[in-house]
């Protein structure tokens, strides 16, 4: 066991006096109690005689009164009565005229009566005080016992961190008895407390709000480490000065351990599931594509081989077979790309959206030759995120805009940043004057393979917006859309502007 820290001497002296006081008051042996009474009165008599010898007039009354009060105080009601009788006797014999007899002269009779009455009054008050103190002690003991019933470790420490109360729960949990630590040990040194925050901050909060709670790491007497959920309450005295701190500690070591192992287990399960998904995606990518290649390959071979003997209808059938197979190939590729976004690791850097949009449009423009498109590009900020992924978002949204404005001359595509948004968010929009959509289907817009148009009208696999949504969600942002049939559509995506985007991105599944 480690050495206990030495408490301050002043506190020790006060405590020792209090213990004597308590021990004297709880003596039960009649011999000791009546002995104390006789001894007390004898000492008082001695003192009074000494005072009389030095001709100090009327000193006997206060001396005897003090003796009676002390006897009543410490020895109880029986010795108190005896003390009054003895004191009166002594008074009569030694101090009231005629001296050295128990007779009382007429002149001294009032004095004698006053003495007796005074002695009784003092005894009475002392008895009342004794009773009150006893019941107070009982209440305190009961409360202390109640605290001892608690499983939790409860202790009180003063503002110098010296332990002033230590319940049985604390004795059992930490392995030090109350006798070993109360008044002797400084809490944080004893328990080698590890705080979750700087101690100054914790103290400041405690002084400000009167409370603090958090998780602490303590070292027990046997050297083992424990994690506790700790709650502190500050007690103030009548002048509102901080006086003591009640600390209630709940052992959560096991809980923490279980949480950690559960966490580990979860992570392992997740990894296994991810592996499975990866191998599934691999199988899809490899095995599903091979038959498609064969369908296309053999159809074309057949077309070549039997070109002369096939009529127009058969040629169309062959073309449809080939086109459908190709379309399925595209679907598989898109689906794989989509699933890869969910699994891929993201690397967050500062991304200049203005530059990103410029690059995306340059890419798309290769497919828009011969079209009249009015581009309108507003000022765009720098954001934090995974550049290739964010580029995919912009390319998807802009090519959508280009695709759905095919029948417009001129087509209008506007890209910009929504102003007046909350400070910690960047919201970018892509607006077009194209086919638009019915707002009642807005929820379906971002779903995988959800399409709001017929394939003859607009080609596509229905994965573009789902990809956009997945990427933005991985960045901790949101997507939304507005539109009306034949009146164009506006797609918005928002990104958090904070620096911790990177950290959040890495953890979002």
């Amino acid at each position, binding site marked *: 066991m480690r050495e206990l820290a030495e408490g301050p001497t002043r506190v020790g002296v006060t405590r020792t006096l209090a213990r004597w006081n308590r021990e004297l008051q709880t003596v039960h042996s009649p011999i000791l109690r009546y002995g104390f009474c006789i001894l007390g009165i004898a000492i008082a008599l001695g003192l009074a005689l000494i005072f009389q010898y030095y001709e100090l007039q009327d000193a006997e009354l206060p001396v005897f009164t003090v003796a009676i009060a002390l006897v009543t105080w410490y020895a109880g009601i029986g010795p108190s009565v005896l003390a009054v009788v003895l004191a009166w006797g002594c008074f009569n014999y030694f101090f009231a005229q005629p001296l050295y007899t128990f007779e009382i002269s007429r002149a001294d009779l009032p004095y004698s009566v006053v003495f007796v009455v005074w002695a009784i009054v003092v005894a009475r008050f002392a008895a009342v005080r004794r009773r009150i103190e006893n019941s107070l002690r009982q209440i305190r003991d009961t409360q202390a016992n109640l605290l001892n019933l608690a499983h939790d470790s409860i202790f009180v420490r003063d503002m110098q961190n010296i332990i002033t109360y230590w319940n049985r729960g604390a004795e059992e949990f930490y392995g030090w008895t109350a006798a070993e630590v109360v008044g002797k040990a400084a809490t944080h040194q004893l328990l080698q407390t590890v705080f979750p925050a700087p101690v100054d901050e914790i103290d400041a909060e405690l002084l400000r709000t009167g409370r603090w709670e958090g998780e602490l790491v303590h070292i027990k007497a046997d050297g083992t480490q424990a994690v506790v959920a700790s709650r502190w309450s500050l007690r103030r005295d009548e002048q509102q000065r901080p006086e003591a701190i009640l600390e209630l500690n709940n052992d959560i070591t096991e809980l923490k351990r279980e949480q950690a192992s559960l966490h580990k287990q979860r992570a392992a399960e997740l990894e296994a599931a991810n592996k499975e998904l990866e191998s599934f*995606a*691999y199988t899809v*990518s*490899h*095995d599903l*594509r*091979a038959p*498609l*290649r*064969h369908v*296309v*390959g*053999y*159809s*074309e*071979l057949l077309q070549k081989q039997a070109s002369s003997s096939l009529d127009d209808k058969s040629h169309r059938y062959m073309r449809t077979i*080939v086109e459908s*197979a*190709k379309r399925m*190939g595209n679907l598989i*590729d898109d689906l794989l790309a989509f699933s890869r976004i969910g699994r891929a690791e993201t690397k967050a850097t500062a991304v200049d959206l203005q530059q990103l949009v410029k690059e995306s449009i340059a890419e798309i423009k290769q497919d828009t030759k011969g079209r009249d498109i009015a581009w309108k590009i507003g000022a765009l900020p720098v954001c934090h995120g995974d550049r290739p992924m964010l580029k995919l978002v912009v390319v998807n949204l802009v090519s959508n805009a280009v695709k759905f404005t095919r029948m417009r001359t001129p087509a209008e595509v506007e890209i910009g940043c929504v102003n007046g948004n909350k400070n910690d968010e960047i919201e970018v929009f892509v607006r077009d004057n194209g086919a638009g959509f019915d707002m009642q289907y807005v929820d379906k817009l971002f779903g995988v393979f959800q399409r709001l148009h017929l394939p003859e009208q607009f080609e596509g696999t229905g994965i573009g917006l789902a990809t956009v949504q997945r990427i933005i969600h991985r960045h901790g942002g949101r997507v939304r859309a507005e539109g009306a049939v034949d009146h164009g559509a506006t797609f918005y995506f928002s990104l958090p502007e904070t620096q911790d985007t990177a950290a959040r991105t890495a953890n979002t599944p």
Partner: protein
Amino acid sequence: MTTLGRILIVEDDPNDVELTLTALGDYNLANEVVVTRDGQQALDYLYRRGEFSTRSMDNPAVMLLDLKLPKVSGLEVLQQIKSDERLKTMPVVVLTSSNEEKDMMRSYRLGVNAYVVKPVDFHEFVNAVKELGVFWAVINEPPPGSVKK
């Protein structure tokens, strides 16, 4: 002077074999093609074991290797070849359906000479195989010890 190298194809899918041979046939590249159907057979061929124990000593001008193969996978075959002093100079082209970045990275780390994803479109597929055949079996000078016709 145009010389023609031998092409070793490792492909388990009979349809892919036929389509590949058809594509090569268009350029009259098919006459010196050896087809093996799994990784084990491919290694047997290269090490002149079993049914291939009587083949001539020289290495093929190029090997077209699928990754997903029965018994011994394409990556294992590749690893074996590139860690063998006598075989590591032989050009190896991975011809696969997989466009997974992981497969690509592992192939290149093992020292593959080219990585080609089989296109779904037949014309593209035919063109890819033809160009591969022409490049590796005709244009490219194979390391000494490879067969030339």
